[in-house]
């Protein structure tokens, strides 16, 4: 029983992290139909920015509690800035290309960003562990959990809620949803789709970087941390249904809990879990869980 609960907790913690990583990706896909392979690199940029900010902050001995604001802000700003550069400098001239070509475009961005990160931060590891232990730990079910992991769950809920409210309760969000639903009609209705794209990509990039920033305290920030994360986020988004934020949440939960079960019961299969779940979901529901097929009218 305890093990079951531990599996649930572990699963939810991991899912929260996955969701935060995947949220930006699915948003960008939903609006722009771009499956951003460089999302992982934005995650890495966020992690690096946060880690260097934490390092600076604690060396100077400021109030520890305020560090959260500082490093998360650093991650978001860095992500937004990178997103801005990518959108303005590159994607803008590529709009209208085939979806698969856009994947390749972002793959090119990924290759470039990996080296840019290396040039900016070097290959030495960066650490930002102070905020991780700052919130303490809790004893639960006979084992210890880091409270920061619960913060992660809260962060996922907040981000999810904000995205939901943003999309459903604001004018801007409704315009976004209109674009998600039908880009051509939206354009015909006078929605400035280009601007929408710009805002979405910057927002998505900032979200990706925020995910990196939030994770940085638990990591050794080294080159290449983004690549695996990127492909993981892919899987989550495909499982949930491309472009659906709710889907990303459910996809994250499925993968997270499946992984926790594997780790606690049969660790050897951990490697397969994600792709296994992805293949199974796609076999049963080719469009992902939360996207319905539209029959073409003839």
């Amino acid at each position, binding site marked *: 029983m305890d093990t079951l609960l531990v599996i649930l907790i572990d699963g939810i913690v991991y899912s929260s992290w996955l969701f935060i990583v995947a949220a930006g990706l699915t948003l960008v896909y939903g609006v722009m139909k771009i499956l951003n392979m460089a999302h992982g690199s934005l995650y890495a940029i966020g992690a690096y920015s946060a880690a260097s900010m934490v390092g600076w902050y604690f060396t100077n001995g400021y109030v520890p509690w305020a560090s959260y604001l500082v490093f998360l802000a650093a991650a978001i700003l860095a992500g937004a800035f990178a997103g801005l550069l990518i959108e303005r400098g590159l994607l803008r001239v590529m709009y209208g290309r085939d979806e698969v070509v856009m994947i390749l475009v972002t793959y090119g961005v990924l290759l470039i960003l990996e080296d840019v990160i290396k040039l900016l931060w070097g290959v030495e590891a960066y650490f930002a562990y102070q905020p991780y232990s700052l919130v303490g730990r809790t004893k639960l079910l006979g084992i210890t959990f880091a409270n920061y992991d619960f913060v992660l769950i809260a962060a996922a809920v907040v981000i999810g809620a904000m995205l939901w409210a943003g999309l459903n309760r604001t004018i801007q969000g409704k315009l976004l949803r209109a674009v998600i639903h039908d880009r051509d009609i939206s354009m015909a209705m006078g929605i400035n789709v280009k601007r929408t794209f710009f805002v979405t990509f910057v927002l998505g990039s900032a979200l990706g970087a925020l995910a990196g920033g939030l994770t940085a305290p638990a990591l050794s920030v080294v080159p290449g941390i983004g690549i695996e994360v990127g492909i993981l986020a892919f899987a989550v988004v495909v499982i949930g249904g491309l472009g659906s934020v709710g889907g990303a949440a459910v996809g994250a939960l499925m993968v997270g809990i499946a992984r926790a079960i594997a780790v606690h019961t049969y660790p050897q299969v951990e490697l397969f879990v994600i792709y296994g779940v992805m293949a199974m979901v796609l076999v049963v529901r080719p469009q992902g869980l939360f996207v319905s097929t539209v029959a073409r*009218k*003839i």
Partner: protein
Amino acid sequence: MSSILETKGLTKSFGAITAAANINVTINEKEIVGVIGSNGAGKTTFINMVTGYLKPTGGSILFRGRDITGFSPRQVTRTGICRSFQVAQLFPELTTLENMLVAHAMLSKKRLGMQAPMKSQTNIDTAMAALSGYEIESYADAPVATLPQGIRKLLDIAMAMASGPDLLLLDEPTSGVAIEEKFGLMDTVMEAVKRSGAASLFVEHDMEIVSRYATRVIAFYDGHIIADGPTEEALNNPEVREYIVGSELHLQKPEDDQNAEN
């Protein structure tokens, strides 16, 4: 005359909406049938069911006495029923000739070759002959994406006819075509159909066209057939006058919004 297509109690509903209810239609050999009815009356649903694009909720479809209910479009095509579309369904990046060649290659009884060139002189001659049957041979080398609507419609029909079907279903052959070109287009099509000896059924909003080409008219209203008979008679049916003709005679609106999909 012997019947080739017969539908019995054909019904289609989408959830609570009934798009077609109890459709009983018989089409005889070499007949030219016009189908009329306002938008949403069930005309296209009827064609979609017969050609296998939609599965009927109830009823059966017999083609030359054989039950083809639930056949897939390609099975229906193989049995000898072909159709055209409201929005011409073509291969936009290929040329007109290539479209025709693909149609011939696919509809021929042989398997698709993996080594024999599709553009052999024989195949090209056949395809060019088919194109000239619809008076579009001069567009042979133009990519389809650059063709005017009328030519696309003709190519669409020419491709459907490539197998020499027994029955041709034309879904609004003149929609999206300029008024002054409509008769020319219909002349070309009907001549070709007559040459091939196939029966045909066409959905049309323009009553002038219906009365000029159809020998028989079926009128749909709200998923039902409200009249079925020789053209004169059907068009003068009071119900038809009230629900369709009266409102249709001055209605020339082509369904342009559909073109966005092409």
